[in-house]
């Protein structure tokens, strides 16, 4: 026998109270306040080190080093506490489809946007990055969209405070005002039995964000990184040589292009010797960003756990002049009073962000600008090459010079936002089974911005320049109160957990803008000055309750009920009832498995869920049911007898409008093998949205508009999700954890109109660039939302599309609107994520990949630019074309050809991170991790455009996502 001493750590530092046990014996101890332990052992003994919420480790005496035993948070542990709406549960007791994603400090990606941390991590959840601008977020979809015209975004709850999804003016992405480094976990409530407690806002799922708090010893953490963003892809456009050739063969000549338009001799010289401009290379450049976060956490005298953090991020986009700078601060206090009877949680977060938005119009302009022109030609429009009229004024139809768009536009904003909450959780002294919980929360933001374009900018020339100032204030206040009663009734081996509550939330916002010209516009007598202001509010009031009943820890029943009132609907429709029921069966505990089976199978749970959720964020203002008049702006007035009247327009409305309801059925099976070394779950679901809000044509003459938003249709999402995670290799030196998830989802509109008219093709949607008012998509019965509605292209024997030749599908001898057909849809049928974490001694490596199958994209860049006409639409200016024109040979745009609808299935290597950890730097508890990562590494796809991942399925000059290389350091002490 000998005595060993050791020390146990978690990712935050030392871990007191961990259990250290000689396996198979009662010989054990727990770690002290500093994580140290001492134990009498024999050589060869297996030592088990465990702690609730962490993966148990086994170490062999004589082989292992006990001086630093790191326990990592085990997200698959059944006792893990999972945050749900108005309370918590454990994984084992959860009855709904709930996925918790704990942020692992070692494998998390460096990003400015919290939602990107979820990308590819859980089945059923899809994050589609909206673009490559700094701070850009992504479109979040949980189990497909349940709405057409109402919001499809999930409800986001930050530390118990539901926030609105409407964004903040002057902030590209409202969620990026939360520092991802302050986030501890995400919980995704996917099915209705889990989400229905959020009632009329939960139709598209709920994401609960829990931020970090402190505990234990005083710890300081610093992490910082430097990122290099590299533009990696460009749209294929004609080179100057190809362009000249096209001009010659298709348009007869190109000589007039070389007529110098400037009298400046230096420019004339440059002009004549000019070789060409690669506009895309001019607008994008590599950029650098850096980030620093410091946090201090611990517990003051074991009584006041706290965490304070400061973060700073400065990120420049690859599109020149885009910039995002963010400073965040967060304070979290967790004092306890009265012998832990009163637990208080205080969270305050603040952000100060400065944005500069690059004019993204320059992206399309760069694709289309004449490649034979120089950037500058000494014009009076800031010196930038500009298409002018005979009289020297700028032409209005051709796009402005891309570089001018960037350099002359100064579009800046500052955003201040604070959100916080104070939660008081009181366990009654006389009845400790009863808890009262009061949560008071707020979310306040203030933003202001200015867009300034000088009067000599060619596109503002006739408007006299632009000086637009705007302000916005948003306030969201919350009061939640609930009582929770938990009682074990041992006589009947049961446990009851009941909760009833009340919630009041008010959203208010005001905004104003002043849009002025800088000089008096040509031909006018005064400066343009348009002031606009707007204020609105809405109130949500709710009563809710939940009853959990568990019998023998094996049979679990959950009922929830929420009654929601929303100010957005008329008194008759104001209140909605959202029930749910779920049953879970811990089959593993039944005892009918043999011991051998039991050894192999460590968890088996069946879950059945049913619930109704709603969607009250209907994208139609806060008073959609009211008969209102809108008073016209001065620019839309009408003269009667020389006096200009601001006109009074009675607006169309639906007095009976109400929320959508989504009924979800869910069957799930959780499983674990080999002592939870392999875990996973499979879920099948059906989500039926009824009273689907859709913008439908109203019978002409019956209302004050031609189409209104009304509750008319039904829509279904059906799907299967599967996830599996396993520690493929698990030993002292080498660990390999691999997690894979796959989702199949199909979306179908099942009813769309009041009268089921068989000739009604559907609701047009999906506006495209090219022409005026053109749309490429349709919501049609029996098809997925936003399916493409196109002509079927005819190809020649060389598989080239024949211009203007489409299949005459109705065989009437003419190609008309009636020959269009529904061809595929933008959302993938199948999407998957695969995340790997490997560690060897002090090294770690993580890899994440994602794939989408059968997501279709309409290549609007090619459909708009891939034709000879667009090169020379008018006699007075030229545009570049995409090289696709060399394949199609199209003379005119063929916007509606299915040739442009492409299968954009892809496999992406999203991220690779390599890290190296150095322990005990200057003290035993100090450590450092160095890492390097590459983001957006590679994409395998057949899609011909820049990026196959396009939210909404219409590719129209997106801000390309750069390849990002990051070097960082994470220091704890």
């Amino acid at each position, binding site marked *: 026998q000998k005595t060993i001493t050791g020390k146990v750590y978690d990712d935050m530092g030392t871990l007191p109270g961990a259990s250290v046990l000689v396996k198979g014996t009662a010989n054990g101890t727990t770690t002290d306040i500093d994580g140290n332990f001492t134990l009498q052992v024999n050589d060869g003994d297996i030592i088990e080190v465990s702690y609730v919420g962490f993966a148990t480790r086994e170490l062999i005496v004589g082989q292992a080093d006990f001086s630093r035993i790191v326990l990592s948070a085990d997200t698959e542990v059944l006792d893990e506490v999972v945050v749900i709406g108005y309370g918590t549960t454990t994984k084992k007791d959860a009855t709904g489809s709930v996925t918790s994603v704990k942020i692992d400090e070692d494998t998390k990606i460096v990003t400015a946007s919290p939602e990107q941390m979820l990308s590819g991590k859980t089945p059923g959840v899809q994050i589609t990055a909206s673009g490559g601008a700094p701070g850009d977020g992504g479109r979040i979809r949980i189990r497909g969209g349940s709405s057409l015209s109402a919001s499809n975004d999930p409800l986001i709850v930050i530390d118990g405070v539901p926030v609105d999804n409407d964004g903040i003016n002057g902030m590209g992405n409202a969620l990026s005002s939360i520092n991802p480094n302050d986030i501890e976990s995400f919980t995704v409530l996917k099915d209705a039995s889990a989400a229905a407690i959020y009632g009329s806002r939960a139709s598209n799922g709920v994401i609960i964000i829990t931020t970090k708090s402190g505990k234990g010893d005083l710890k300081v953490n610093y992490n910082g990184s430097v990122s290099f963003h590299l533009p990696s892809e460009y749209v294929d456009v004609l080179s100057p040589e190809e362009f000249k050739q096209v001009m010659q063969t298709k348009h007869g000549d190109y000589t007039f292009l070389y007529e110098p338009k400037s009298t400046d001799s230096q420019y004339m010289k440059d002009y004549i010797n000019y070789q060409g401009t690669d506009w895309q290379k001019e607008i994008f450049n590599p950029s650098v960003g850096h980030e620093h976060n410091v946090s201090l956490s611990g517990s003051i005298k074991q009584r006041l756990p706290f965490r304070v953090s400061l973060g700073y991020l400065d990120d420049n986009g690859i599109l020149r002049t885009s910039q995002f700078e963010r400073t965040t601060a967060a304070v979290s206090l967790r004092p306890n009073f009265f012998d832990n009877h009163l637990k208080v949680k205080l969270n305050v977060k603040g952000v100060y962000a400065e944005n500069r938005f690059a004019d993204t119009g320059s992206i399309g302009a760069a694709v289309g600008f004449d490649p034979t022109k120089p950037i500058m030609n000494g014009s009076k429009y800031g010196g930038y090459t500009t298409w002018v009229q005979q009289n020297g004024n700028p032409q209005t139809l051709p796009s402005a010079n891309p570089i001018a768009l960037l350099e002359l536009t100064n579009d800046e904003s500052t955003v201040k936002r604070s959100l916080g909450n104070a939660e008081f959780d009181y366990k009654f002294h006389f009845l400790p089974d009863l808890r009262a919980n009061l949560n008071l929360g707020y979310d306040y933001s203030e933003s202001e911005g200015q867009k300034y374009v000088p009067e000599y900018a060619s596109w503002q020339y006739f408007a006299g320049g632009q000086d637009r100032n705007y302000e916005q204030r948003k306030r969201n206040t919350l009061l939640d109160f609930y009582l929770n009663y938990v009682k074990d009734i041992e006589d009947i081996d049961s446990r009851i957990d009941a909760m009833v509550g009340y919630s009041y939330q008010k959203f208010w916002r005001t905004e104003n803008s002043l849009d002025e010209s800088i000089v008096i516009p040509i031909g006018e007598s005064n400066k343009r000055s348009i002031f606009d202001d707007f204020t*609105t509010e809405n109130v949500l009031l709710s009563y809710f309750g939940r009853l959990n009943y568990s019998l023998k820890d094996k049979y679990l029943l959950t009922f929830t009920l929420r009654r929601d009132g*929303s100010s957005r609907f008329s008194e008759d429709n104001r209140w909605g009832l959202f029930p749910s029921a779920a049953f879970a069966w811990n089959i593993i505990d039944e005892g009918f498995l043999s011991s051998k089976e039991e050894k192999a199978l460590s968890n088996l749970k069946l879950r059945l869920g049913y619930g109704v959720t709603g969607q009250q964020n209907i994208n139609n203002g806060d008073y959609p049911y009211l008969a209102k008049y809108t008073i016209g702006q001065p620019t839309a007035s009408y003269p009667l007898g020389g006096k200009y009247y601001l006109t*009074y327009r009675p607006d169309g409305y639906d007095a009976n409008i109400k929320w959508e309801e989504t009924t979800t059925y869910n069957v799930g099976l959780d499983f674990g093998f080999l002592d939870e070394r392999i875990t996973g779950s499979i879920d099948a679901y059906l989500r039926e949205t009824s009273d689907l809000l859709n913008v439908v044509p109203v019978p002409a003459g019956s*209302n004050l508009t031609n189409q209104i938003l009304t509750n008319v249709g039904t829509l279904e999402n059906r799907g299967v999700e599967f996830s599996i995670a396993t520690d493929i290799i698990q030993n002292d030196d080498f660990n390999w954890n691999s997690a894979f998830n796959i989702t199949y989802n199909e979306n179908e509109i099942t009813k769309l109109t*009041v009268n089921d008219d068989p000739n009604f093709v559907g609701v*047009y949607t999906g506006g495209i660039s090219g022409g*005026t008012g053109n749309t490429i998509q349709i919501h049609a019965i029996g098809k997925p939302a936003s399916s493409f509605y196109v002509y079927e292209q005819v190809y020649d024997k060389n598989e080239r599309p024949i211009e203007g030749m489409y299949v005459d599908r109705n065989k009437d001898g003419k190609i008309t609107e009636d020959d269009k057909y529904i061809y595929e849809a933008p959302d993938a049928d199948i999407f998957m994520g695969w995340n790997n974490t490997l560690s060897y001694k002090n090294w770690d490596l993580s890899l994440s990949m994602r794939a989408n199958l059968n997501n279709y994209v309409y290549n609007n860049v090619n459909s708009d630019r891939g034709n000879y006409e667009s090169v020379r639409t008018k*006699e007075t200016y030229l545009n570049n074309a995409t090289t696709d024109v060399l394949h199609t040979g199209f003379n005119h745009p063929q916007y509606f050809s299915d040739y442009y609808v492409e299968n954009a299935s892809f496999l992406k290597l999203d991220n690779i991170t390599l890290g190296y950890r150095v322990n005990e730097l200057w003290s035993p508890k100090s450590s450092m991790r160095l890492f390097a990562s590459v983001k957006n590494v590679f994409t395998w796809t057949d899609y011909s455009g820049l990026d196959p991942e396009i939210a909404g399925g219409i590719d129209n000059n997106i801000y390309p996502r750069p390849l990002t290389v990051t070097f960082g350091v994470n220091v704890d002490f």
Partner: protein
Amino acid sequence: CEGDLDTIPLDKDQKTEVDIYQTTEDYKAGLAKIYAGLATTGQQGPAGQGDLGGIDEGISSYVRQLFYLQQFTTDETKVAWNDQTVQDLNKGIWTPAEVNVRGMYYRIAFEVALANEFIRVAKENTDAQIQEFVYEARFLRALAYWHALDMFGNFPFVTEEDAVGNFNPPMATRAELFQYVETELLDIENKIAKAGMNEYARADQGAVWMLLAKLYLNAEVYTGNARWADALKYSENIINAGYQLEDKYANLFLADNDNSNEIIFTVAFDGQRTQTWGGTTFIIHAAVGGDMDPSVFGIDGGWGGIRATAAFADKFDDISGDVDKRAMFVTDGQAKEIADLSKFTDGYAIAKYKNITSNGEGGSHLTFPDTDFPMFRLADAYLMYAEAVVRGGGGSATQALAYINELRERAYGDDSGNINAGELTLEFLLEERARELYWEAHRRTDLIRFGKFTDANYKWEWKGGNADGSGIEDYRKVFPIPSSDIGANPNLKQNPGY
């Protein structure tokens, strides 16, 4: 706390039914919206808070849609764009899903609904001035219903008696609509302000008479019963009401055409205050393209959209404009024939409408013209009078000839273009209507009345979808009811053929 759910709009630009109408000026602002329904497309100007959905706001303009349906389908105009299904109008192959057919249909229905709402609220008020507003609202509703019966034949029928909400309006037949419009106009004829006595841009007796004249002139098409004598009577009323031909034809289409005494009913536009991407903004910009200099038109740039057919150019013996000043062709850089519909430079451009005053000054804004759209003008009354005479509606043949020659003298500058009594035939009148009234959104109606709209013997390029032109189906004399409304309202029946 549940009382907190009773929120009301906080925005000062939004009012509820209850508090909107307080003063006479409030009612006038409500009336202004019905007028503006012909001009603007929403409450923001030029675009934003649009009146209609599912269509580009600028395209949804009343005047613009009227121009699309009345012009692109005829021998006067073709459009070069590929916006949605607009080429189907050029070719005469439109379907019930055609977006502009839908746009016009809903714009008309919206105008009717606006008028109904106003009449419902205002008719209770006994104030004499407000009652005048009601007559004008009824005129505007009749105008919209006339466009409905002219273009669509049958149309869903609603009046101020129907409350706004979820119901299916019945379909009125063309004959029923005819009767309704006639009855309404006859009822307000002597109640509304006397001809020429109302404020600028407001309807008066002259406008009512003009609409009655046009209704009767086309009565045979609408109902099967010709009403030539009534057409003659109301044309004569207008001619005798004190309107005067503008001295210079060109001035009728310029930025200061609000000064004209020839225009009977106008749709007003203003560069600063009545902004839209439709209306004359569309007509002027779309007519400019190719090598044309936009500054000549008083605008900042052309859209390269609309130009004349060769068939229209051929209606003038001399297209230079030196002889007949109504020939306002731009031939430089433009081919006469439209070989390629999508190419603006195929087909002569037209320099009729401009955002320049008669003194050569620019309008108040380079994008949005001050030029008003002359919906009804005296020259049309002259032509209607002559036609009614020739068709046997009575009246004086000599007088008819004199009216026509008055128009010709203005066009030619002297009597060199005058015709004699023998030349005053129906064929001549159809041609003359083109020369006088082209691009004023009358052509489709005229061609139908003369039996030429679908006729295979009366051809223009791209009629029927081929470059040489061919006949089109007879049922195309009315447009289809949009499939969206067939789907929404089970009371509707599609027009035959579609």
